[in-house]
């Protein structure tokens, strides 16, 4: 056992030494030998998979047909399903109904005013979570109103309102199918795995290609993005229903269909509702990002502000997204945790009287809005803007703290980022291929090694090697920093009740924020570049690092801790010798999640000018080059899948050696 470990260590050191040697000397080697292919993967050997994919998609869209049934009909059908409810809701809330098109349109119903909408959400919040929740929700909407974000926010909300039910319904349907039919589960699993790792932009490219620029594309992308967790949670929820409850249903004489609808699904409803919460949050996240392909709304406001470096507007719209996210999250969480409490008594009318009263108010609000115009559109003179304030804050920081910020930035760049980048980029791709086999094979067996080799070969032959290295470097550095910050904080939260309360609140809030929002402060303070990207990634990826460390420490068996105390451990020994080793598997799982979070954020930082795979996807998106987008997206997914397998294999290896040591 000891010898094996020693050999392992030697192997690591040896590999590292060779890699450094090659990385440092590769330039000189190329000059010496004239073999340029050493440093750069030869263009002639590229597979041009992207062009093939583009052509395939084009064929699918234009020529593919089965008899008289064309593939385009499918996309049209999907468009129609999504567009119809979207159009109705949008007219109801944002545009108003009209007969005819454009200039000649005759308006027949103005958009619903802000008052009934805020009132409706307020009442809903009150019923689900009492006065506190109602206050949060009303305040969030009031912010949107006061800061002139109402129109944009309503566009975003309409998209969410359309995408969520469709996503939930689709997810539940597929989840049931996977629960009932083993082959469906087996067929879905690789897709679900892949979907969780493919970066968000990569979804957008082919969808943009198939559905064109506009809200439909955005909605379709959003649904596809938000559905996988719903599928998974539904299947798991159904599987987790206690066998006794299922047996009780069978003994009551349920047919298989009754068993599903009357017993299994209702019994799994708590978990299904957790899935609904997730769908809502993912949908919001994606609707914001999908502003790039025409979703409009708050995301579009942020995007334009970012492009124009309009600090004030960007921060305001960013807060708008934050408040909307918090309101929706708390609302759906209240919905999820709400058990049945009040018995259903009284007639149908009586039980729904709040709803009818609300309906009456909505109807009454139309003529009222005609009388009082302020109810239709919130008067501009009452609107606030802190845009100037934020711009002032940022410029103050930039003037007064410029030197300090710059010093930190330069130090990190010079001593951390650049060396790592140079090191990784210097590794000749051929040696990289060797490593991509040896390292996974050593950690998780030869199958994993082959997988690593195939993935790396895919990246190399696609001509994406340098971009992949930049992705690795940014992700790696960010993950290390996130772990260095997150794990100690998590340990603190695991030991100290008050720290736990505060940190839980902070990370819960951070986690509800759409990824886009993270870019705003970063760009304002550090402008574009790798450093900004790293900060954004660390902020986003620190959440799982904290959470898992805290869960791990809190989950240590209290009897083991007591045994430690009784045997006279000092508090420090207690942490290092007892709690940390016990919590290590959970912390490693946290590492896994931190990597996943980092990758998904990293792709979005393409917007602040990184040169990684995310940038490739982003460029593909702006050029609507579907093939290129898919290939680069897959490259990110492969990196994500590989790090997932590697950390899992490491956790497994650890727990088995742990057992044999005992």
């Amino acid at each position: 056992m000891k010898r094996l470990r020693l050999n392992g260590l030697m192997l690591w050191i040896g590999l590292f030494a060779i890699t450094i040697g090659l990385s440092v000397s590769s330039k000189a080697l190329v000059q010496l030998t004239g073999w340029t292919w050493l440093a750069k993967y030869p263009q002639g050997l590229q597979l041009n998979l992207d062009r093939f994919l583009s052509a395939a998609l084009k064929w699918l869209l234009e020529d593919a047909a089965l008899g008289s049934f064309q593939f385009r009909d499918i996309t049209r059908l999907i468009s129609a399903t999504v567009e119809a409810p979207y159009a109705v809701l949008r007219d109801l809330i944002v545009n108003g109904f009209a007969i005819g098109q454009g200039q000649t349109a005759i308006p027949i119903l103005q958009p619903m005013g802000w008052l009934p909408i805020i009132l409706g959400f307020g009442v809903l919040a009150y019923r689900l979570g009492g006065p506190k929740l109602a206050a949060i929700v009303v305040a969030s909407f009031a912010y949107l109103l006061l800061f002139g974000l109402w129109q944009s926010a309503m566009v975003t909300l309409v998209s969410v309102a359309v995408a969520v039910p469709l996503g939930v319904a689709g997810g539940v349907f597929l989840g049931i199918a996977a629960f009932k039919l083993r082959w469906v589960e087996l067929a879905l699993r690789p897709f679900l795995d892949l979907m969780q790792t493919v970066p968000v932009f990569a979804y957008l490219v082919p969808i943009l290609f198939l559905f064109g620029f506009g809200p439909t594309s955005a909605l379709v992308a959003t649904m596809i993005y938000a559905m996988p967790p719903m599928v998974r949670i539904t299947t798991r929820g159904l599987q987790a229903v206690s066998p006794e409850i299922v047996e009780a249903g069978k003994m009551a004489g349920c047919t298989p269909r009754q068993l599903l609808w009357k017993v299994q699904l209702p019994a799994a409803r708590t978990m299904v509702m957790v899935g609904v919460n997730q769908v809502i949050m993912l949908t919001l996240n994606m609707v914001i990002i999908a502003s790039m392909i025409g979703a409009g709304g708050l995301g579009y406001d942020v995007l334009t502000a970012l492009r124009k470096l309009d600090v004030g507007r960007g921060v305001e719209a960013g807060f708008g997204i934050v408040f909307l996210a918090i309101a929706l999250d708390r609302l759906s969480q209240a919905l999820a945790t709400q058990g049945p409490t009040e018995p259903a008594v009284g007639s149908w009318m009586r039980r729904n009287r709040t709803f009818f009263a609300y309906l009456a108010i909505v109807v009454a609000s139309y003529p009222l809005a005609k009388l009082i115009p302020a109810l239709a559109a919130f008067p501009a003179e009452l609107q606030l803007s802190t845009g100037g304030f934020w711009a002032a804050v940022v410029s103050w920081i930039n003037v007064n703290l410029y030197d300090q910020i710059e010093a930190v930035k330069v130090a990190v760049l010079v001593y951390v980022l650049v060396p790592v980048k140079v090191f990784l980029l210097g590794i000749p791709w051929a040696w990289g291929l060797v490593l991509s086999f040896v390292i996974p094979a050593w950690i998780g067996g030869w199958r994993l090694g082959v997988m690593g080799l195939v993935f790396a070969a895919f990246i190399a032959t696609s001509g994406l090697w340098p971009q992949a290295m930049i992705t690795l470097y940014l992700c790696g550095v960010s993950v290390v920093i996130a772990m260095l910050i997150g794990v100690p904080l998590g340990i603190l939260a695991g030991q100290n009740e008050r720290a736990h309360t505060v940190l839980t609140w902070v990370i819960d809030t951070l986690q509800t924020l759409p990824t886009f929002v993270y870019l705003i402060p970063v760009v304002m303070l550090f402008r574009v570049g790798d450093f900004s990207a790293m900060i954004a990634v660390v902020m986003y990826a620190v959440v799982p690092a904290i959470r898992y460390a805290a869960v791990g420490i809190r989950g240590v068996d209290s009897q083991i801790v007591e045994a430690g105390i009784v045997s006279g451990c000092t508090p420090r020994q207690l942490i290092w010798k007892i709690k940390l080793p016990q919590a290590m598997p959970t912390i490693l799982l946290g590492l896994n999640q931190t990597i996943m979070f980092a990758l998904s954020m990293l792709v979005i930082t393409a917007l602040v000018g990184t040169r990684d795979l995310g940038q490739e996807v982003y460029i593909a998106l702006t050029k609507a080059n579907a093939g290129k987008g898919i290939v680069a997206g897959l490259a990110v997914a492969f990196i994500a899948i590989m790090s997932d397998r590697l950390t899992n294999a490491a956790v497994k290896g650890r727990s088995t050696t742990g057992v044999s040591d005992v």
Partner: protein
Amino acid sequence: MTPKKLVLMERPIILECRNVWKLYGANSDTYLQRHDGVPTAEALRQANIVTAVRQADVTVRKGEIFVIMGLSGSGKSTLVRCLSRLIEPSAGEIRFEGRDLLKMSDQELIELRRHKLGMVFQHFALLPHLTVLENAAFPLEVQGVDRKTRIERAMQVIELVGLQGRENRYPHQLSGGQQQRVGIARSLVVEPDLWFLDEPFSALDPLIRREMQDEFLRLQARLQKTIVFITHDFDEAIRLADHIAVMQDGVIVQTATPEELVLRPATEYVAEFTRHIPKAKVVRLGTVARHLQSAEFAGDLAASSRIADVADQIEAAAKPFRVLDDAGIAVGEVDGRIIIDILIGRDLAP
């Protein structure tokens, strides 16, 4: 033989199973066919197969409480699920009211469960989204009974188990004991002919458990159901059972009345259970009475009374008591010596 037992033996058989097996593990379904005959426990273990139930024979007669008793993991739940066909047995034969249960189609099985079977579960298995009333009415809802009838019938069973006034609560608002009352109400709402209870009181605190047992006996005195009752608690088995089947590692090692079990345990394993049971609380006068030989008696006692209940009386009297069966016919006599034999555990003359 006691009169009660005689009556029981004459009652019609409701449920009967012969040679039932249940194996778990890879290829376990075909294992028995491939190895015809009876594989030894050792051979099965070698093949990596868990033998949950092995060669089980059970006969349940109308109106009796048939208890299956054994330590946890001994196969009780598996056996009772085979009997209700929630689990498909690996081999064997099961007859319910003379019909072959294992040959029934899915549709027949659903019909059977809707009208003839009821089951109570260890962890209550209530539907969390339904009120007490809706839970109790659930089997009727599934059958498509109209709302009014279903509520009426459900209210009746809710009253039967003493939960009136709580019918609009949800399961999570009730105590464990109350939740199990709902489970009992639900299983009774279709007026089943055969009632399965899988460790219904095991998840409850001892005091509540005792109370529920009393209540259960009261209920049974009224309803006269045919019952298959699972427990790991030998005291509970003794209190409730007409017959007890003791299971060990998937095998039924003895099926007998509580008295026989206490007086003549078939194996060391069964004896281990019965050792701490005060025999006087189980054994009835009819079982220990000797032939009538005295001329004078201190009085008459019923053959069905338990020794513990009449011991003081017998000991205090100078003369023996005559023992009469239900019909008032003298079946023998008892005196203080017999009582002492029982109390100190001296072997009884057979």
